[in-house]
Every structure is written in C-alpha cells, then in structure tokens.
C-alpha cells in the first residue's frame, strides 16, 4: 500500500490516505506529486499563499535494494516562475519515510506560527519551532537530532526560506538540497521549518522471487556500465574539463565559454589530486558519485566540505569567475546554510555584477562587486540575499523581477520563464540538453532533458540532428522501445533526432524521478523503460508493460505542461535571452556564432509535433 500523509497546517490536522491507485497510474514520486498539484491547486493560486500545496514524494523503489533507489521529489507551484515547480534529492530522507510506513507527505494551508513536523514511525506530530526559526539549516539538523535522536533525517529550510527568497531550497540533512524552483520559499510561506523523519519498519516487495532477479540484474548493469568508473571517480566533475574544451562554460554571465587556466585551477584532475578525500553515497547507491573534500594544501589547507559538484564549479567558478576550489565550496556552503539554490543564487549575482559594471546600479548598491571572481564580495552578497538586506532584498526576487526593477538591465537577465539558466551555454553546444532548457516543464533547467546517448564532443553544430557519439552496439543494447529507437536513431542507427530524443529523454527522466532512482549515467544509460516496467511489477504487484510505463510518463509531462499553460504560459516564453540570439560567444581566438532565432523556433515546432501538442502549435506558433 502507498500511503500519503496529508498535513493541514492551518487546522493542525493529520490524515493518512491510501493512494495506491494514483501510484499505479502515475508511477510514484514525481508522477503522483504532479497529479496532486494539478488536481488540488486552484488556477492562479499564489505560490506563497496557503492554497499552494507542497508534496514530498519518495520514489516507488525507495526502501528497496535497487541501485540508487534513494530519490525523493518535492513539488509545488514555483514562486520563482509561477509555473510547475519541483526538485529532487537523494540522501536518506526518502528511505526513512518508507521505513516509517509512508510514501508521500502533502502539506497544505499555513501555520499561524513556526512549526516543524516529526514523523517517528506511526507517530506524526506538528511541533512548535519557535526555537528553530532563524537558524541555519545545519544548526536546525543538529538541534532536531539532539532533541529527538541522531537517527532522524531532516528536511529543513534556512533563513532564506523563512524570508521567502524566491529561489530558496529545502536542505536534505547537512549537504543535500531540493534546490531548484524555490520549494524552500513555499515551505517558509507555510511557517514550516522542517520535516524530520525516523523509520525503523519494513518495506516489502510484492514478488520476492521476481524482485531478487531484477535486483541482481540492476546491480550488474549499473556497476558494469562503461560510465561507472569515471562517475565514481569524479562524480559530476567529470564534465568540467570537456565543457571548457568545447567552449560551453557559462563564464562571466554567459559572455565567455572558455578559460585558459580552467583545467589547472578548476578542472577534475586538480580536484582529485588536491582536494578529494573519499567517496560518499546516497542510500542504496553503489556508484558513490559524491565526495568528501579535505583541502590538502595552500591557504585553505584542512578546510572540509562535501563536494565538489560540477554545478558549484560551473556556477561560482565559471559564471562568477572564482578560481580557487575551496572558495567555490565556501560559496556553496553559504547557500546550504541559508538554504538557497546554488544555480539561481549564482545567476542573480552574475546579473547584478554585469549590471553594476555597466553603471546600472549607481551608488545604491555598494554590496555588489564590480569584478568577476571577487570572492569576499560574492560571499557578502550571498549573505545579503539570504537575509534580504540592501540590494539583496531585490535580488532575492530572482533575476526576472530584479531586472524588471533595474531599467536597462534586461539584456543581462539570463533566465527562461523566470528560472535562472544553469551551467552550460547553448552557443557552445547545441543538443538535446540545451533544447531542454526551453522544453522542460520546470523552466530554465538542465536536469530533465538529458539524452542517454549524449554527444558532448560532437564538432558540427546541427539543430535538428546530431552525430552519434557511442558505438552502434551500445545503441542496439539500449533498453528503449524499438519503434522509438528507429525513429530517433534511424535504422541502422546513423544520427540522433534532437527534438524526438528530447521527448524521449524527458519521459525517461520522468520515469526515473517517479520510481526514485538517480539520473547519474550508469542508471540513466544502463536501465530503460523495459526494466522499469518489470521492476514496478515486482515491487508493487501491479502488472506493467513497457508501453504503459511510457504512456504514464507522457501523461505526467502533459499534466505539467497543461498546468503551466493554465497558469498563463505562452509560446513566446519558449525563448532564450536575447544574448544567445544576438551575440557571438568568444572561444579561444575566435567565437561561436549566435543561435538563429527562426531555426530554434522550427526545432521547437518539431518538438511540439513529436509531443503531439497540435493545439499549442496552432495557437501560438
């Protein structure tokens, strides 16, 4: 049985509901969260008002031993975009919820005073959080664990969430985040400081014998996948060097894609040799892509933190120009303590620096640095945003609102539909990933449209098709519906159809985020819809076919898209900032050309056709 804990914070009421039928139709995690948000939030609801609902959904496989089965999706209407908001985190929180006997926690209404929730197996309490309000996220975890027990897993907001910073995160224990789209502000708007969970019960699968085979198969495929070794060794940092090599860094607010000294200062090699101490993993994960850093020399010798993630490096290292890895980690640490999304925080600061360099802030904002890489200035500004002090109060609204309040600054405002654009410049590399910046339903983001046949080093910029990057045998081996394989790669495989692959990639990641596995390459590329159908059947006891799983994923995407259209989304919003269409991107001694607006529009038309959204195309294109 899949149980939903419904907590009405206005009336301090707790109910338990069986939502197995929803999980059957919407796979779990992200899918069920989506259905609840669409059905239960009225159109036009204020994302920071009591009518927004916020749902934690642990994936259907979480609590079983499938590799990486640890992920929990957190979903609500986003205060940053006013559209569909959601983020995903691993760690141990979701497993604890499952072992407590529950799969989902839905929060409605608004408490009149700060509270936090404890779920201690069957005991669910709404408790006074006056003593926690104002605390950093790490102090919050420490305090709750001291009072309740070391074995509580804690999802909490920091001062940024309390002060409704529109890109506030919810932190997952000390180092993890539900980062993007401002779910921490939604939690803060409900006067909810934390949800702490302890579970010591059992999670059972429906078909033990069937599951045993699937578990062995999944471990074998993940641990033996060709991407396993480098994902374990470098984690996400594996792409730090190639992004620079192809000139796709988001350097200095997307004005340079390449740095001469990148590899020596911020590359994966120096991270491994001078910073990394050991590997760390989320619950049930054999990949262990994350690391513990203990700086081995220099002025930061002995500084310890979790990381380095490549998003920290690309955001604080490239976008803001900080060259020292320990300083990059300290920026992410400030974001974690205040509870702010690293990407949006870095993006809004990059916007402010460029606006300041162009004389748009005058003397009214002395906190904003003038120079890229000004580490002390960037730290001070991060803190001002987290506290909503000075210009930080305006920047806490996100780039879209901030730029609307700074005349002449729109050209430096690098967002899509209100969400700050992350990590990679589409002029440096156009592919499924960068088309996804426009098509994914949580707006300017990079994690929901990733091809399982990525081709990072492809040389020719082609808008509709890209070269195949992997051996044909690997494509033949991909667990993917045969008809889609032929449509996307051709028969025999000869290219990748970018718009069609974007649709498939989004649906595959929807399945992953609903079942609770991770999108790291060994899982993303090693397992597919056929596997997920068999695993869902073994875990839940409900029969699934590959086609049913694909259809459910498509249904979930369409619900999210319809939610966005319902909330006012128009086709004009499916656009990059003008900079990408009008300015070339400097690269070594030359440059990469801007994106042709009319061709990007045509690619989008192909995407919508593949999505079978004819009405939207007719209405808006």
């Amino acid at each position, binding site marked *: 049985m899949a149980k939903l804990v419904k907590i009405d914070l206005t009336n301090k009421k707790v109910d338990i509901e069986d939502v197995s039928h929803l999980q059957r139709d919407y796979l779990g995690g992200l899918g069920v969260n989506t259905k609840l948000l669409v059905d239960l939030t009225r159109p036009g609801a204020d994302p920071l008002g009591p009518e927004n609902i916020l749902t934690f959904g642990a994936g259907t496989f979480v609590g079983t031993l499938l590799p990486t089965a640890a992920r929990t999706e957190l979903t609500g209407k986003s205060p940053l975009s006013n559209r569909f908001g959601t983020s995903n985190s691993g760690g141990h929180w979701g*497993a604890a919820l499952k072992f407590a006997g529950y799969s989902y926690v839905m929060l409605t209404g608004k408490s009149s005073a700060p509270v936090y929730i404890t779920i201690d197996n069957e005991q669910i309490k709404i408790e006074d959080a006056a003593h926690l309000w104002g605390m950093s996220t790490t102090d919050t975890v420490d305090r709750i664990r001291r009072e309740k027990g070391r074995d509580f897993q804690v999802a909490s907001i920091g001062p940024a969430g309390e002060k409704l910073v529109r890109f506030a995160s919810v932190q997952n224990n000390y180092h993890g985040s539900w980062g993007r789209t401002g779910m921490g502000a939604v939690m803060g708007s409900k006067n909810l400081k934390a949800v702490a969970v302890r579970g010591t019960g059992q999670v059972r699968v429906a078909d033990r014998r069937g599951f045993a085979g699937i578990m062995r198969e999944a471990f074998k495929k993940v641990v033996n996948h060709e991407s396993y070794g480098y994902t374990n060794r470098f984690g996400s940092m594996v792409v730090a060097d190639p992004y620079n090599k192809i000139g796709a860094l988001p350097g200095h607010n997307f004005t340079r894609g390449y740095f001469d000294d990148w590899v020596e200062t911020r590359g994966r090699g120096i991270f491994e040799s001078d910073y990394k101490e050991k590997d760390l993993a989320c619950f049930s994960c054999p990949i262990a892509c994350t690391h513990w850093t203990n700086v081995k020399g220099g002025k930061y010798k002995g500084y310890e933190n979790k990381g380095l993630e490549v998003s920290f490096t690309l955001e604080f290292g490239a976008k803001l120009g900080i060259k020292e890895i320990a300083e990059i980690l300290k920026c992410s640490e400030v974001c974690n303590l205040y509870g702010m999304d690293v990407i949006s925080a870095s993006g809004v600061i990059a916007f402010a620096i460029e606006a300041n360099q162009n004389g748009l802030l005058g003397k009214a904002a002395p906190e904003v640095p003038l120079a890229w890489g000004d580490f002390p200035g960037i730290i001070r500004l991060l803190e001002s945003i987290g506290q909503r002090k000075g210009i930080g109060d305006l920047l806490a609204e996100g780039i879209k609102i901030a730029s609307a309040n700074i005349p002449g600054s729109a050209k430096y405002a690098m967002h899509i539909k209100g969400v700050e654009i992350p990590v990679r410049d589409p002029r440096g590399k156009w592919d499924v990933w960068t088309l996804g910046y426009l098509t994914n339903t949580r707006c300017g983001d990079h994690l929901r449209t990733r091809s399982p046949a990525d081709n990072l080093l492809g040389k020719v910029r082609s808008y509709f098709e890209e070269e195949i990057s992997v051996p044909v045998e690997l494509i033949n081996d991909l667990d993917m519906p045969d008809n889609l394989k032929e449509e996307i790669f051709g028969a025999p495989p000869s290219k990748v159809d970018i718009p069609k692959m974007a649709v498939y990639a989004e649906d595959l990641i929807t399945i992953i985020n609903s079942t609770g596995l991770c999108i790291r390459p060994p899982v993303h590329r090693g397992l597919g819809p056929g596997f997920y159908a068999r695993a869902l059947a073994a875990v839940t006891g409900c029969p699934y076919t590959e086609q049913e799983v694909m259809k459910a994923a498509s249904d979930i995407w369409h619900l999210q898209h319809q939610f966005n259209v319902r909330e006012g989304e128009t086709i004009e919003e499916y656009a990059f900032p003008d900079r990408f269409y009008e300015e070339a991107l400097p690269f070594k001694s030359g440059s990469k050309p801007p994106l042709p607006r009319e061709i990007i529009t045509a690619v989008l038309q192909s995407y919508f056709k593949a999505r079978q959204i004819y009405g939207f195309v007719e209405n808006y294109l």
Partner: protein
Amino acid sequence: MAWKISLNEARCTGCRICEMICSWSDEGGFDPSRSLITVESIDEKDAHFSIRFDPGCKNCGLCATYCASKALVKEKEQRDG
C-alpha cells in the same frame, strides 16, 4: 565458511547496501534496523563511518558481495599448517 570478511572503514561511503541485503527476508522485506551489520556515522557531518557486525552474523558474505566501495571484502580464510 571458507572466507572471512575484511573491513576497511575508511572506504565506507555510507550507502547502507550491506544493511539492506543483510535484512532481505524470505518474505521479501527490507528492514535495515534488523540487519546483523550496522553502519554508523562517526562524525558530525555524516562523512565517516564505523561498521559493526552483530554476534549473530552467520558470515554468509552477502554484505561483501554487494559492497561496491570495497569497505567489506570477502577473503579466503588463511589456515595454519
């Protein structure tokens, strides 16, 4: 059993896969709180771990079979003479 399980706690990533596979019951349940191996964080920030075997451990070796980080490794027992 013809093997022993060697321990290298510094390599432990904290994934708890050993606890999960140890607790995998005949009825199809996972219940790490009943596992005969226990991983505990030994620092304030969940970065370093201790590993402890319960006296009831049957030395079946499944925990080491599934341990990807090589914190637990199945080794052939050395016998004297």
